[in-house]
């Protein structure tokens, strides 16, 4: 394999960061793993793994209940993680950080609690054609249940989302705009600043699905000015089973609980029960304590590298990969918006994404093949499925070359 030394940026030492990720150092089918499915879930640095071990070994007990030392330590670690998340997305208060099981649950929480309280028959929710199913189906449930109307914004053929198209989808009935910050299937970075400005001028709240943005771009919820922001820990190098819902305190405290039970109440009696304010009111039952603390550790890890530097390096990777893949005749990149995160979807003339995925796996290369939980988007673009390579800051230019070499093998088999 040729190494393009000149194309390798000197300012960012991906090789050094790779040593922090045990899973990256293994052979798959006899060759070194090239992990390019980061948009589905990212690998974990040893710092996160060590945090989990340390917590379970030394500081573990249930939180928010015990008067004893160990419970206090676990509670402190848990609440410190909340503060870490607050700082990471620059929320005003850590009371605005609700821990959920994942972005999917965060959106369901908003749909279920906010949606059922504040939406009524005929109200419109604006999404886009490129949403993940997690930002489609919860709203469809409300279409059935209370008769709201879902308005998908038309996207461009290149996967871009134009502010004019968003404006065209907004009407006097629009009561919420709920859109991806970055598309998981195409990598498109949406014009969220313009969307939020438009929404504000019409007093429409905005939810951003930040699942893909959170690991690729610096996110500042106050600067953005949105009302809800959601993401999952596992795509941000943290453990599975944890997600974040950020919401403005004024809004969260007007929303009824999503689930009920222990740890979310003020007073329970058989005459009635009063609920805590956010975030407690939305965190019923024992949460994923260790995983939340692990998320805090993952955030500290990426913060020491810096999201701006990560974004800059990933952008170089994206440009390099885009230019290398564009040279392959039978390959067509799906999603060529001017503003993209390091995600490349593509199709090949004679090979189906599944076959490409299987053959690349033979070269140790992990990519996603399928509809990426975005079937309406696949329909819109007229492809049944795509192959997707998604890059993290621990990926290298040599791995892009390995991908290109793997695709040459696909061509050898399928022509």
């Amino acid at each position, binding site marked *: 394999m040729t190494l393009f030394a000149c194309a390798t940026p000197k300012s960012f030492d991906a090789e050094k960061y790779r040593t922090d990720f045990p899973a990256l150092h293994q052979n798959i089918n*006899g060759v070194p793993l090239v992990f390019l499915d980061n948009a589905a879930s990212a690998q974990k640095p040893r710092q996160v793994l060590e945090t989990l071990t340390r917590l379970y070994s030394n500081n573990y007990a249930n939180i928010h209940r015990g008067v004893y030392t160990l419970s206090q330590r676990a509670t402190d670690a848990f609440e410190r993680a909340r503060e870490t998340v607050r700082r990471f997305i620059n929320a005003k208060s850590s009371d605005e950080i609700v821990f959920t099981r994942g972005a999917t649950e965060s959106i369901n929480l908003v749909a279920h609690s906010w949606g059922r309280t504040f939406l009524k028959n005929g109200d419109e929710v604006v999404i886009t054609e490129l949403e993940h199913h997690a930002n489609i189906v919860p709203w469809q449930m409300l279409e059935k249940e209370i008769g709201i109307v879902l308005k998908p914004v038309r996207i461009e053929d290149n996967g871009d989302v134009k502010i004019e198209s968003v404006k065209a989808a907004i009407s006097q009935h629009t009561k919420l705009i709920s859109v991806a910050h970055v598309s998981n299937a195409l990598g498109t970075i949406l014009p969220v600043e313009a969307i939020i400005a438009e929404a504000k001028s019409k007093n429409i709240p905005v939810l951003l699905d930040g699942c893909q943005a959170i690991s690729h771009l610096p996110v500042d919820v106050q600067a953005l000015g949105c009302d809800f922001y959601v993401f999952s820990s596992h795509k941000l190098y943290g453990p599975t089973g944890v997600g974040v819902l950020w919401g403005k305190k004024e809004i969260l405290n007007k929303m009824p609980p999503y689930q009920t039970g222990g740890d979310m109440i003020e007073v329970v009696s058989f005459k009635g029960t009063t609920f805590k304010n956010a975030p407690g009111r939305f965190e019923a039952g024992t949460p994923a304590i260790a995983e939340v603390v692990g998320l805090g550790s993952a955030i500290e890890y990426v913060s020491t590298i810096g999201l701006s530097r990560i974004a800059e390096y990933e952008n170089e990777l994206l440009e390099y990969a885009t230019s290398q893949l564009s040279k392959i005749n039978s390959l067509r990149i799906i999603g060529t918006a001017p503003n993209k995160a390091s995600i490349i979807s593509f199709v090949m003339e004679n*090979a189906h994404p*599944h*076959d490409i995925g*299987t053959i690349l796996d*033979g070269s140790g290369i992990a990519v996603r093949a399928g509809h990426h939980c975005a079937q309406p988007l696949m329909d819109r673009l007229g492809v049944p*499925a795509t192959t997707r390579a998604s890059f993290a800051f621990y990926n290298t230019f040599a791995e892009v070359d390995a991908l290109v070499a793997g695709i040459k093998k696909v061509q050898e*088999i399928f022509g």
Partner: protein
Amino acid sequence: MSSNAAELRDLYQELILDHGRTPRNRRKPADANREALGHNPMCGDKMTIYLKLGEHDGLIEDVAFEGQGCAISTASASMMTEILKGKTAAQAQEIFDYFHTLCTTDDATPPKDLNEDDLDRLDALSGVRQFPIRVKCATLAWHAMQAALCPAGMRQNEVNSESDERT
């Protein structure tokens, strides 16, 4: 050659690639009296199987399919149409049972009346054994065929191959 390379070559052998590239019987017969849609939820691939079943003898007089899929699901549908034409509904079920076992376990015994060509075709398709996640691609058309064979009233018009994996 690494074992994976050998397995890949086995999976994508010439017979499969040929049927994948130029599938046989990809059409909608005007006189089909049965049809069912197969759906692979993993990739979104959809495939419709058409049958023309003899009124009294249950003989499969014609079998064809429409839809796009990966090389494996397309080749499997194409070869299935060649294998099943002229067989009875009962034989078709027996052959699917054998093929399913072939893809998912280590001991499968072929039905007695299967000829050499059919055995070779099924054998080629069974390369998916080494790729557990791809078994559902190979069985997609067959599940749809099985659904189409069900008598009206009991028939599901859409089926999927989701649960098929080599264990």
